């Protein structure tokens, strides 16, 4: 039986699934209910000087019939008194001593930081998360992502916190920045114990085109929010990878996680644990009952006995482009038995790629790959609606490996506008005027 217990910079939890600091962790009631359902830890809704919130607060993005592939919010940090939150943290820890309770914090002055760190430690928190990520409302007041976007300021505040903190300090990063590695390094320099990412992405999810106002609408007006949910996962995965490869700090991965598979992807790219919010806001705490057995079954199948064994397993396989093998060659193959004849592969390749698929006249609707034109781009296989109908089949024999970096070293790269060393010379494309008959 694989061991699912997790240890992030000394913060232990029975499993690596934490609730992210957000509405689902607004109260002791919710956190206890979540632990009871099986969650391993919870990062409390950010504490600080309580705020006043607006109504409404969320905007959703649907893709066709899929609800909430993205969620945008303009809610601020906790609007409840610190005293109430501290009492509830204490009570949760009394009932769940082995689960992780992390206090998310956001205040302004050094004195406030010192005070609130001591307060949450006294309440029994297992760790602290510094909210340097919130990209709406709080940043206008110089907090949240306003700190995360200034590595120097970030480092200073981490130092203030570390002056008094005796429990591990996680620095939560904002993705609203050009290079995530900079604030991650600043967190390390400030002596932070771990980083968590990503916080939400600044966003407008849509506009009410009858009333000319973006969502969510507050009395006929709106403001930018923070975007999260399944749609942000690819952005978050890349940032987690960048931090894992460049900064020596444990990572708590956040962004679009809603099943075991999402979590495994984060682990393979270097995360020690994961935090979840949107999926819980959509489906409730009960989704944990899919995540735990799913992770366990995957680990059994792969022979991982604990989480550390799988951590970062994919990192060595993420390289810079210039180090990829230019001699690797795949082409598309269509399974005629499975093909339903939608011809989406054809039109995607014809109009959107390299004109490497043709339609067969007077026959069934199964298109044909023109193998000599196929560059192996994958587009047809990812638009195909049928599982395993279009597959990419290897054509090189695997004996050659040549990268752009090696060609650069060998002075074998195109350098002038009509250089014949480039890939396109002699490569077949239809005549422009052929288009007019189509």
């Amino acid at each position, binding site marked *: 039986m694989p061991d699912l217990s997790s240890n992030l910079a000394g913060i232990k939890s029975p499993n690596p699934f934490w609730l992210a600091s957000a509405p689902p962790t607004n109260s002791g009631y919710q956190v206890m209910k979540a632990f009871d359902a099986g969650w391993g830890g919870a990062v409390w809704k950010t504490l600080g000087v309580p705020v006043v919130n607006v109504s409404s607060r969320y905007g959703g993005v649907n893709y066709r019939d899929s609800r909430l592939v993205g969620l945008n919010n303009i809610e601020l940090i906790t609007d409840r008194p610190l005293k109430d939150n501290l009492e509830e943290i204490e009570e949760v820890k009394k009932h769940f001593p082995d689960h992780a309770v992390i206090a998310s914090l956001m205040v302004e002055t050094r004195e406030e930081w010192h005070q609130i760190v001591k307060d949450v430690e006294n309440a029994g928190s297992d760790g602290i998360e510094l909210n340097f990520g919130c990209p709406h409302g709080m940043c206008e007041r110089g907090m949240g992502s306003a700190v995360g976007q200034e590595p120097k300021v970030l480092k200073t505040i981490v130092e203030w916190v570390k002056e008094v903190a005796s429990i591990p300090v996680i620095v939560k990063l904002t993705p609203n920045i050009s290079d995530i590695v900079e604030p991650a390094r600043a967190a390390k320099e400030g002596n932070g114990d771990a980083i968590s990412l990503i916080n939400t992405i600044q966003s407008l999810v849509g506009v009410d085109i009858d009333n000319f106002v973006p969502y969510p609408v507050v009395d006929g007006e709106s403001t930018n929010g923070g975007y999260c949910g399944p749609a942000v996962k690819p952005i978050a995965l890349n940032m987690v990878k960048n931090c894992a490869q460049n900064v020596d700090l444990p990572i708590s991965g956040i962004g679009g996680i809603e099943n075991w*598979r999402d979590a495994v992807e984060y682990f393979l790219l270097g995360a020690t644990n994961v935090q979840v919010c949107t999926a819980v806001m959509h*489906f*409730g705490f009960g*989704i944990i*009952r*899919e995540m735990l057995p*799913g992770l366990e079954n995957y680990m059994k199948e792969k022979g991982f006995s604990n989480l550390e064994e799988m951590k970062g397993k994919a990192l060595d396989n993420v390289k810079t482009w210039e180090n990829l093998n230019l001699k690797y060659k795949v082409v598309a193959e269509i399974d005629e038995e499975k093909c339903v004849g939608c011809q989406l592969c054809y039109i995607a390749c014809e109009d959107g790629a390299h004109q490497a698929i043709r339609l067969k006249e007077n026959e069934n609707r199964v298109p044909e790959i023109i193998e000599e034109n196929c560059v192996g781009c994958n587009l047809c296989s990812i638009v195909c609606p*049928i*599982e395993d109908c279009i597959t990419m089949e290897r054509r090189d024999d695997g004996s050659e490996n040549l990268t752009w970096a090696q060609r650069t070293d060998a002075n074998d790269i195109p350098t002038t506008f009509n250089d014949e060393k480039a890939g396109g010379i002699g490569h077949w494309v239809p005549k422009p005027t052929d288009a007019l008959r189509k």
Partner: protein
Amino acid sequence: MGEFKRPETEQEFADNFSQIKPLMNETEAYYESSRCLFCYDAPCQKACPTAIDIPLFIRQINSGDVTGSAETIYASNYFGNACGKVCPTEVLCEGACVYNEQNVKPIEIGRLQNFATKQAIEENKNLFSLAPENGKKIAIVGAGPAGVSCACELRALGYEVDIFEAKAKPSGLTVHGVAPYKIENEEVLDEMEYLEKQFGYRVTYNSPINSEEDLRKLEEGYDAIFLGIGLGNTSVLGLPGEDLDNCVGATELIEELRMNHHQIKIGNKVVVLGGGNTAMDAASESARMGAESVILSYRRGPEEMGAYDFEYDLAKGVGAQGLFNVQPVEILGNGGVEGVRFTRTEVVGNELREIPGSEFEIQCDMVIKATGQLKQKDFLNMIAGVEMDDGGRISIDSSGRIGSTKYFAGGDAVNGGAEVVNAAAEGKEAAQGIHQYLME
């Protein structure tokens, strides 16, 4: 000729009885599982007699954890694979799906369930943890859904289990009584073989328990006994001509059909007596076996039939014709069946009355009686302390126990004749009852 040609080969039989819920492929399973809303306190789960966590197993299919999905299903229902096909999902889980409220097609829960468990069976996945042997032995009479479910649960709890089965194959009516277009024999038996391998209970086939001596041996050799004996043969109506050739009981006919497929003979003009689900099955099966006309006769109006609407639709869909408010008074013929004499009926108040002078005859060459099965009273009377209700059903307490005996029971013999899924649920519950009784 009727809609269906008489099947003469195994292939023709398979074509006539093609599966109404065929196995999903990966694409279907992905799309269908994507549609599930993951309702909280889900109505589908509440509608399932075994309370499978349906939203969870569908989500597990969707995230690619098909093994976990099968584990979720089997944790609640040991007949998970068969039930995916034979359950009347239209009136259970799928009938409860919230999509119905907006006329959106409900999730095909049954087929998804069959898909997930199929892989576990094929790969002989080890999904169960068995408690260490506790030294106690239980005998089970009948390897039907109730008996086998009880056996699995008892093995999981650490008991040694012996099942005694009168017939040559396990699963009871799942293989002997369900219509062939719902599930094929091989699929039923594959699941039984999988469970037997996984749980390690012993089944002795062709060994009916039918004497006081047999029962005494069980009582002496075992700490408790579970009766999953089901029901007996088709009831006798007491009509003149009932013993003519080709006047047969539906239960017996369907069993023969399932065991011998195209090799059995069905008449050309068939009259089915009865308005329950078995009558609908018998009518559908007769049509699919090549009968030219099939008449479903019922003594009350169509709205009072015990059969589910979708079962009546299935029968009508292959050409069976309903004949309502008629009561058979005589099976006509000389050696073989040549017709049925009916009288018309009317319902006055709540009472069914024959209309004097309304008799008429219908020509046919086969009569199938689907008018209920006998209770096994003679057998049960051999057990001291057994109580039965007025309908001959075994009376049990909430733990499945019969009075203060060491006998427990579940399935058709207790509920009077219900679905495979009900028997599976009751067998499992009774195992918990036995555990409680022996651990006290």
